[in-house]
């Protein structure tokens, strides 16, 4: 058809079009935000692992991630591990989950004990203040500090010990567990551990193969697993997935149902509101296929407009959410957008079925009625 009937129909009532597009856009945005929230959690969960400054982590056998269990290895295997891996540098960290309480606010955090001055395990982005230099000093995540009203210079209690806040870190916020940093010594004391660390961290020689180093460490040092930071991050993501994927998937499913409902509603209303027009076209001699194609084009156009509105809206809302609630990281990357696009296509197909059926029921004889 050279007369752009679908386009004309859509633009004829701009208010209705705006509402329909907004409705579809909101449903798409909801799905993108949920997917982006999930992706953002993965980013924050793996943030520390990816910024450790080490090529290998040596931890307790069977513990395969920072979040999925407490690893405990003897401090004195340090030398053996470094030798087996032919490491150029080595360090250690203690890492555990605990609750940070300030007044009425309780926040689960990941406590990292690292060696001040070492390149391993330290916060990679210190915003305000400075890094720790003593055993009674602590670094808090910027959002955590903001949430609890703590600033640099304040003193806080943690695990029965007193610490002074000397700096605030960035890129360490997380809805699940923001990071806080103290010295390894202070962590050992607070956790009642003696000569035990969570991980040995090794830096390999430039020509050393990680796979070979892992094999060497695991065979020569008993009771340990050696992993690359990537493997640790992947393990944490998997652990996270088993926890969060189920409720998230259910919510995404509900979001998709909402999207279908909105698309159906708008397409259905479009048909019933223009019953007469469709009756006239039928009377004039348009075939069922021509009319169905018209409906498909209109529904698809609305869906496409709604999709782009949804993508734009999602980025906007994500930005707003992260500005108001900095503990959330929402990451919407193009694979997520493609995922949402395919879902929107499926929703559109389902949504178009009812209106096309409705079309069949329009009796062209109604053109003779006033």
């Amino acid at each position: 058809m050279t007369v752009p009937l679908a386009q004309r129909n859509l633009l004829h009532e701009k208010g209705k079009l705006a509402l329909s597009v907004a409705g579809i856009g909101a449903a798409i945005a909801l799905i993108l935000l949920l997917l982006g929230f999930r992706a953002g959690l993965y980013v924050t969960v793996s943030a520390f692992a990816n910024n450790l400054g080490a090529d290998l982590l040596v931890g307790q056998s069977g513990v395969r991630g920072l979040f999925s269990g407490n690893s405990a290895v003897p401090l004195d295997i340090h030398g053996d591990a470094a030798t087996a891996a032919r490491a150029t540098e080595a360090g250690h960290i203690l890492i555990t989950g605990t609750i940070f309480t300030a007044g009425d606010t309780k926040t689960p955090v990941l406590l990292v004990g690292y060696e001040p001055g070492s390149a391993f395990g330290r916060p990679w982005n210190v915003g305000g203040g400075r890094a720790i230099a003593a055993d009674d000093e602590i670094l808090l995540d910027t959002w955590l500090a903001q949430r609890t009203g703590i600033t640099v210079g304040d003193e806080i209690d943690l695990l029965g010990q007193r610490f002074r806040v000397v700096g605030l870190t960035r890129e360490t916020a997380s809805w699940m567990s923001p990071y806080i940093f103290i010295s390894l010594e202070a962590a050992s004391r607070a956790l009642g551990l003696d000569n035990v660390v969570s991980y040995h961290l090794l830096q390999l020689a430039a020509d050393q193969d990680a796979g070979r180093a892992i094999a060497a460490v695991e065979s020569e040092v008993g009771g340990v697993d050696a992993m690359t930071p990537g493997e640790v991050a992947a393990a944490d993501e998997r652990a996270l997935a088993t926890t969060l994927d189920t409720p998230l998937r259910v919510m995404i499913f509900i979001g998709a149902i909402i999207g279908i409902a909105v698309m159906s509603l708008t397409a259905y209303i479009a048909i019933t509101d223009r019953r007469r027009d469709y009756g006239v076209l039928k009377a004039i001699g348009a075939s069922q296929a021509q009319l169905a194609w018209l409906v498909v084009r209109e529904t698809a156009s609305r869906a496409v407009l709604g999709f782009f509105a949804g993508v734009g809206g999602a980025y906007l809302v994500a930005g707003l959410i992260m500005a108001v609630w900095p503990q959330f990281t929402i990451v919407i990357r193009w694979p997520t957008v493609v995922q949402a696009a395919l879902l929107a296509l499926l929703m559109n197909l389902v949504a178009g079925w009812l209106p096309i059926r409705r079309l069949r029921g329009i009796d062209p004889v109604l053109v003779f009625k006033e």
Partner: protein
Amino acid sequence: MNTNDHVLDLRHVSKVYGSGHTAVTAADHVSLRVRRGEIVLIMGPSGSGKTTLLSMAGLLLRPTEGQILLNGHDAGRLNQRQLAGLRLHSIGFVFQAYNLLGALTARENVEVVLNIAGVKGKIARRRAIELLEMLGLGHRLEHKPADLSGGEKQRVAIARALANNPPLILADEPTGNLDSKTGQEVMELLCCGLGRDQGRAIVIVTHNDRLRQIADRVLWLEDGRLSESGGQGGQSVVQAASLHN
């Protein structure tokens, strides 16, 4: 009788709604033949079954009994798709309520019918403009129905009806919503410009007495009976019938 001269041929057509003791007979063995270039008027009080008759003639409603031939094609042997195609090329409708598509301009309302028939692009556009100019709407091509007067809307509807050059025009109260002056103009268009002169058959359903002037035949429906009411010539081939609503 040369059937090729008859554009529309209804043979003992009946329409019954419902069944058993609630059955309503809207048309009872009606026969009607309309020749090319003939203008037939069907008049009668409200509720006498004119809509049913028009719907069947327009291939929008299948009869319960009888045969309908349009341009020699037996409608009873055709499926919905084929009927639609026949309507597209053989019938032009003019409605009391105009029934223009509100989202389209005057030109587009005519052009879309050509598109449906497979005529696209510049050819369709040119034909649409030609028709509208012929009907004195050359200055209103890009206006939407909401911006047109009643008379202008009806002229667009007439242009649309003529788009695919059909041999038959079916008009339902074409002057019903117009003032007397505009109604007169439309009447003249139907009679002379578009109908007889171009060999087109026109069937008009109306209450408007003034349209008698242009009719070759006037048929009257009342209490189920169809009779001739006197026109300007032509033979009555309508048989006795009861046309109820």
